[in-house]
């Protein structure tokens, strides 16, 4: 008694093959988009990229094609992003710890996570407008400080949730063991959780930095733009995304070219940060209990 197990092509098999095919195509399209973006930015940015671009500030007539570079924007972005990340850290670490040690998966835990996720979804242009109204109310002008504060607000939910996701996977046993030994919850938070949080914190910092360097709409109103390297928190500062944006708006082809080069610099920084966070968190994860 033999059973016909040979494949005879029914409709469902054709369907299976067809769906698999278009799924693969979709995946290739998405991956291809990434490749295309990098390709275009490299091909168009590389010719204009020069040593002067990254070591000099704009000289007179820079925006009409004369010499100089965008060191002001590169440094400005680094100041803005690291300031914002540092400020966001101060708040996000305790929030993530509180979420873990006190709220856990309780109802309040869900509310806080919900509000963090909602904050994450608020567009940076709204933060920018909000920041600007705040500055008017306080009588402040566009400055490095204002940019840092707004970037910190934007980065706060991203960083907190990143940490939260990492420490959530921390085994409860470990915590209970510490509690059983007579530690208070605060001590548990401080010792056990911080150690476990290390990969979470590094991931969060790098995520925050990446977001902070790339964000344009929020710093547009709050940090302003200047050709000088900021010397004080109260001075306005340039930023890379805006350097790209403004230079592309120029009618001079040389300046547009440098806009592409600035975009390449920005992309390289962000990719290094993003790849770095992968590498670091993979390394750090080895030393924690899963």
């Amino acid at each position, binding site marked *: 008694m033999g*059973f016909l*197990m040979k494949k005879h092509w029914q409709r469902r098999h054709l369907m299976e093959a067809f769906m698999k095919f278009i799924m693969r195509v979709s995946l290739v399209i998405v991956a291809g988009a990434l490749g295309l973006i990098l390709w275009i930015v490299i091909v168009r940015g590389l010719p204009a990229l020069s040593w002067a671009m990254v070591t000099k500030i704009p000289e007179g007539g820079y925006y009409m094609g004369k010499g100089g570079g965008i060191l002001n924007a590169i440094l400005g972005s680094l100041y803005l992003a690291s300031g914002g990340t540092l400020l966001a850290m101060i708040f996000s670490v305790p929030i993530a710890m509180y979420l873990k040690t006190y709220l856990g998966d309780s109802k309040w835990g869900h509310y806080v996570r919900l509000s963090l996720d909602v904050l994450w979804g608020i567009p940076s242009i709204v933060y920018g407008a909000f920041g600007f109204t705040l500055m008017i109310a306080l009588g402040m002008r566009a400055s490095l400080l204002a940019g840092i504060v707004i970037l910190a607000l934007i980065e706060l939910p991203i960083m907190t949730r990143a940490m939260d996701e990492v420490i959530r996977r921390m085994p409860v046993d470990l915590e209970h063991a510490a509690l059983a030994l007579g530690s208070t919850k605060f001590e548990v938070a401080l010792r056990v959780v911080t150690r476990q949080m290390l990969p979470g914190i590094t991931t969060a910092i790098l995520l925050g930095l990446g977001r902070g360097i790339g964000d344009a709409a929020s710093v547009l109103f709050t940090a302003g733009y200047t050709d000088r390297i900021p010397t004080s928190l109260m001075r306005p500062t340039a930023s890379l995304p805006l350097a790209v944006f403004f230079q592309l708006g120029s009618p001079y082809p040389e300046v547009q070219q440098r806009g592409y080069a600035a975009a390449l610099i920005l992309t390289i920084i962000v990719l290094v940060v993003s790849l770095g966070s992968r590498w670091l968190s993979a390394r750090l994860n080895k030393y924690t209990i899963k």
Partner: protein
Amino acid sequence: MDAHIQVKNLNVYYGKQQALKDVNIEIPKNQITVIMGPSGCGKTTLLKTFNRFLELSDGTQLTGEVLVDGQNIYGREVDVTEVRKVVGLLAQRPSPLPMSIYDNVAYGMHIHKMKKDRKEYKDAVRHYLEIAGLWEEVHKRLHDPATSLSIGQQQRLCLARGLAVEPVIILGDEPTSALDPISSQNIESRLLDLKQQYTTVIVTHTLRQAKRLADYVIYMYLGEVIEAAPAHEVFTNPQHERTKQYLEGLF
């Protein structure tokens, strides 16, 4: 012996770890074969090679042959869905699909377009629910969600669902381990009723169940088949020291 399933030189690897070592066995037709052995010995792995479920997990490798009615189910031209239609599976935990009781039983028949019209489907659903001994309990609420049934009823529903695609072999992966004693007994007596028409292969970790059900016994240890023989021989006069120890150890 009229062998229904023949396993030849079967080796299975999970990554680098070998889970089955050179398995050569024959499983008799229309009898209940019980695979037993200590946990981690490869019982379930062996069972999963019979309906090609092993390939659902990443990183498994298989060499050798599994012949059903003389045909290698790992052959190149073989349609895996056809294999799974012929070789039904009763899982460890009952897994009702998120649909009504009726649709659960009809699911496989619809998948294979086995019936012509509604009436035929209806009759078939009734037929298989009767075989699974569930009809009396559920005929008034066929369109309730399957999850509203008790665990024991769910497992019988899964049996009906599996039988509805007209398999010739039924695999059971510790099919009663999640059930209460009465439900377990119910499933066991279904399996005994069905053994005239189906070749049944059950994995179990309880020796009592093996003794109640088995016509043929396969004893495994660390990925190897130690002993494979008719049940009365294994239970009364085991040939191997390990089998003997296992049988004694659990009493």
